[in-house]
């Protein structure tokens, strides 16, 4: 045999970029899954499977509507009695004209049960029902205003206003009274819109009848008895009846069914076909392998969902159902909204399914794991249909439930930006956690060679000790802390009956558990050496002096940044809020305030954000990026206060995070930061309690003016001196001895 490497151009120096190798990996995953006939079948079969189910649900919904409709009434409000009489006369004239034209032989009950397709049948029935029309007269007073508000509040379905017009036709000299009816309905309520259409149709019949008569008399006339115009108000009602609420469930069904097969095939399937060993023998980080698989699953899930959606929307459109689904009809905007939600759902399920199938050693095992998951996932889907269920901060961190409620509110244009952000962020987090979990288990010898050592390996304490936590360990820790933090914040806010001192102490101990015990647990699991992992080194004397100086002088800047970020109204509402807090806090002994608001937060937050998290970030990133990232997360946690969000706390917290991070990196230790943090908080609390003012610096808002420039200038000077001291200390230390004490 001749050597295949004889004339090999090995001298060609090539260091492959990561993206080059990753794209090779991704290309293979996509090819493998998209060429698979079973994927294609799922793509086409799924619509066939999902539609009967969907059809049943739609039918149920419409039957519901129809039975209601037989009793339902359209309530029409008119400004006064005389106009009411005129309108009613016109209306009943139109009604007679129309009913004369319509075929009377269709029966309601027959149409609902024997329709060819469910939607066509129910829709036909839907059109046949004759609603009861109820006329009302608005109260005296400001008619126009009250009519609009009656419609908006959903008390009536259609408001009618009348504007008399005097028309003087060209041919005849006599004056001819005419007018314009304005119909007002609620844009968010399908019922209201249908009522308006119902009325308008009857009025139109009268107009056309009048015109026809004139034309038949061959008398040319420009007069009409009246005109109508239709306008809408944004109604507060209508959420409960909107069909939009089932969209989240449909999204769950579609993206999950789309992701199941590729997730199993690309993980358990790889082992079953014997390609896993060769793949694991290649020098690829497991997170890459999982990321490539994730993208492939995501693509298939999105494609499946899009095929389904297209088919479904096409059916809906063909049947004229789209206005029932989406109040305004199907616009490009609505499509884009659905697409965005679809991607979020698909990403979530792709990551979660991959995580679960990574544990499986065969197709069968994977299916056994997935079936319960699929059933469990249906439950949150139904949440979207529960009326009056309000999205709260707690819902926003519950996996799947958060995006279900999010998409309901989003499609109803009722989503709060902050909760939207929290939901998307936590979903992203859960996705990343699921993927890194998958990367930890996929292709390990347990899975690869089916040994009996099994899953307990995964939870066993790492045998090796590490100096700093691995990034995914810290991220996992953060992912556990985030929901726990939100839950505990909500928990504290529930304790209204307790004395404020007790509440402060409870919140202090929760801080301790959360920011210290959870990271300690993760440090143990990851085999991280505590001293190095939390950056607990002895600092230089000058570092401590500098940090103390900074603790006394940084607050004016944080204060100015917060003032800068606030609008005037926000300041007003906040100062009201703090006014009430102030009375409560005044009674608390100073030491309790200092312990629970200064000492504990300083120690715990520093040890986590500038200790554990920062040392994990420093593993992977440069100093600058590590400081930025830890400050961002630090600020994110400070936005959440009890059970609400104070977005304006982000900027000053971010600023403090940057300063503390910089101090930490400069001094090489977490301790100066703890001093700085403690003094910073403690100073503000002490000042506040002695000045009969409030406990924390952001509460100084009550005298919302800017600080005197002299203060700022003086502080700036001190801050510079502080950083300089820490720098000097660092130099001296590294010159003296290289190893840290």
């Amino acid at each position: 045999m001749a050597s295949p490497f004889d004339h090999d151009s090995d001298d060609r120096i090539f260091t492959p970029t990561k993206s080059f190798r990753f794209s090779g990996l991704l290309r293979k995953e996509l090819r493998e899954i998209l060429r698979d006939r079973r994927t294609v079948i799922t793509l086409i079969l799924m619509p066939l499977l999902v539609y009967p189910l969907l059809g049943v649900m739609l039918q149920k919904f419409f039957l519901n509507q129809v039975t209601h409709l037989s009793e339902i009434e359209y309530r029409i409000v008119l400004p006064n009695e005389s106009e009411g009489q005129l309108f009613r006369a016109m209306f009943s004239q139109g009604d007679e004209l129309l009913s004369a034209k319509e075929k009377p032989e269709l029966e309601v009950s027959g149409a609902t049960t024997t329709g060819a397709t469910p939607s066509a049948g129910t829709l036909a029935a839907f059109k046949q029902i004759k609603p009861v029309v109820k006329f009302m007269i608005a109260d005296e007073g400001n008619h126009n205003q009250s009519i609009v508000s009656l419609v908006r509040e959903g008390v009536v379905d259609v408001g009618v206003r009348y504007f008399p017009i005097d028309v003087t036709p060209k041919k005849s000299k006599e004056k001819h009274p005419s007018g314009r009816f304005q119909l007002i309905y609620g844009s968010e309520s399908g019922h209201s819109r249908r009522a308006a259409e119902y009325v308008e149709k009857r009025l139109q019949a009268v107009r056309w009848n009048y015109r026809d008569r004139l034309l038949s008399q061959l008398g040319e006339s420009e007069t009409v008895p009246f005109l109508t115009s239709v306008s809408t108000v944004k109604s507060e009602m209508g959420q409960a009846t909107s069909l939009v609420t089932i969209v989240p469930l449909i999204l769950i069904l579609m993206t999950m069914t789309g992701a199941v097969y590729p997730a199993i095939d690309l993980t358990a399937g790889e082992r079953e076909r014997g390609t896993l060993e060769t793949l694991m023998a290649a020098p690829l980080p497991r997170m890459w392998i999982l990321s490539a698989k994730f993208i492939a699953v995501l693509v298939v899930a999105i494609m499946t969902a899009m095929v389904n959606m297209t088919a479904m929307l096409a059916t809906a459109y063909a049947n004229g159902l789209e206005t029932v689904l989406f109040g305004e009809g199907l616009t490009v905007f609505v499509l884009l909204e659905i697409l965005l939600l679809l991607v979020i759902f698909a990403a979530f399920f792709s990551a979660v399914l991959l995580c679960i199938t990574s544990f499986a050693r065969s197709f069968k095992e994977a299916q056994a794991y997935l079936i319960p998951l699929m059933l469990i996932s249906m439950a949150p889907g139904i949440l979207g249909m529960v009326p009056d269920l309000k999205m709260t901060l707690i819902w926003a961190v519950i996996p799947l439930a958060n995006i279900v409620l999010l998409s309901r509110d989003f499609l109803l244009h009722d989503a709060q930006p902050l909760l939207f952000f929290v939901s998307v962020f936590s979903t992203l987090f859960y996705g990343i956690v699921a993927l890194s979990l998958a990367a930890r288990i996929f292709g390990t010898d347990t899975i690869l060679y089916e040994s009996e050592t099994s899953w307990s390996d995964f939870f066993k304490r790492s045998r090796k000790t590490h100096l700093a936590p691995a990034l995914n360990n810290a991220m996992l820790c953060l992912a556990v802390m985030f929901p726990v933090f939100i839950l505990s914040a909500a928990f504290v806010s529930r304790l209204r009956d307790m004395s404020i001192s007790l509440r402060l102490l409870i919140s202090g101990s929760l801080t301790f558990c959360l920011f210290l015990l959870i990271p300690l647990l993760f440090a143990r699991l990851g085999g991280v050496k505590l001293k190095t992992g939390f950056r607990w080194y002895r600092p230089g004397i000058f570092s401590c002096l500098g940090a103390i100086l900074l603790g006394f002088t940084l607050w004016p800047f944080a204060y100015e940044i917060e003032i800068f970020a606030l609008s005037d109204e926000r300041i007003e509402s906040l100062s009201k809020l703090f006014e009430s807090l102030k009375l409560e806090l005044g009674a608390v002994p100073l030491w309790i305030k200092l312990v629970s608001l200064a000492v504990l937060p300083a120690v715990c937050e520093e040890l986590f954000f500038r200790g554990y998290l920062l040392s994990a970030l420093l593993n992977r990133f440069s100093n600058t990026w590590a400081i930025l990232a830890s400050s961002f997360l630090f600020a994110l946690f400070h936005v959440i206060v009890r059970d609400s969000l104070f977005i304006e706390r982000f900027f000053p917290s971010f600023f403090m995070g940057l300063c503390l991070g910089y101090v930490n990196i400069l001094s090489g230790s977490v301790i100066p930061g703890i001093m700085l943090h403690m003094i910073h908080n403690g100073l503000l609390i002490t000042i506040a309690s002695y000045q009969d003012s409030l406990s924390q610096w952001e509460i100084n808002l009550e005298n919302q003016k800017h600080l005197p420039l002299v203060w700022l200038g003086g502080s700036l000077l001190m801050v510079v001196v502080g950083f300089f001291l820490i720098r000097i200390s660092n130099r001296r230390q590294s010159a003296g001895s290289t190893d840290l004490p």
Partner: protein
Amino acid sequence: MILVKDLTRIFEAGNQDVLAVDHVSFEVQPGEVYGLLGPNGAGKTTTLRMILGLLKPTSGDAEVEGFLVSSHPDEIKRRVGLVSTSAGLYQWLTPHEILSFFADVYGVHPLQAEERIEKLSRLFDITSFLDRRTATLSTGQKQRVNLARSLIHNPPVMLMDEPTRGLDVVGSKVIFDYIDLLREEGKAVIVCTHRLDEAEQLCDRFGLLYYGKKNYEGTLAELQQCTSCQTLTQIFLQLLDAPLEPAGILPTAQEELI
């Protein structure tokens, strides 16, 4: 080139521990074909997997070109090729796509990869079906694609696990030629097999595993000398007859060599 140091692996099967590999040590030089021999369940596959870092050893370590598998698993993987009978191929891809996929993940320059794919496919006679789906290929054709795959990154070390299992005469011939090629290329090769007759022809040096323990090591001549048996099969049968004190009766070849 390859240095195996006291590799040990204990499997926890149920509540009883299985000592699959028991303090196995050996060395393989470039251009040398080392036969790791032993009956089924002797621990050959487990040893190979530990060298490649697919299985974590209970204790001990392996070294390839100065890199320890415990500390630099990726450096080892970059330098090692694996031929295993249990290896499958991606059924929806073509041989060409599979080869360029592995070239990509091993970081071979795309132009060089094309060159190599062309040469390797000529060498293993897979050119004619390079663009067919692998699911439609015969066992022999798949085997040749797998051999080509294992060489795509031109690794200095090749690990082969039962390479001839399930192959006909033609298939075995391909493997023999392949191993000769590896020797000429100066690669360090470990071949695991229970086919002693084949091993005799293929390998330069042998290590005999029995219940996870390495009992003999040496060239055929050395083994013949110290066991006074003519063929590997006879040596083995002798070993099987005295399972209780395998290391005691005869000095191990290792002791003689070092």
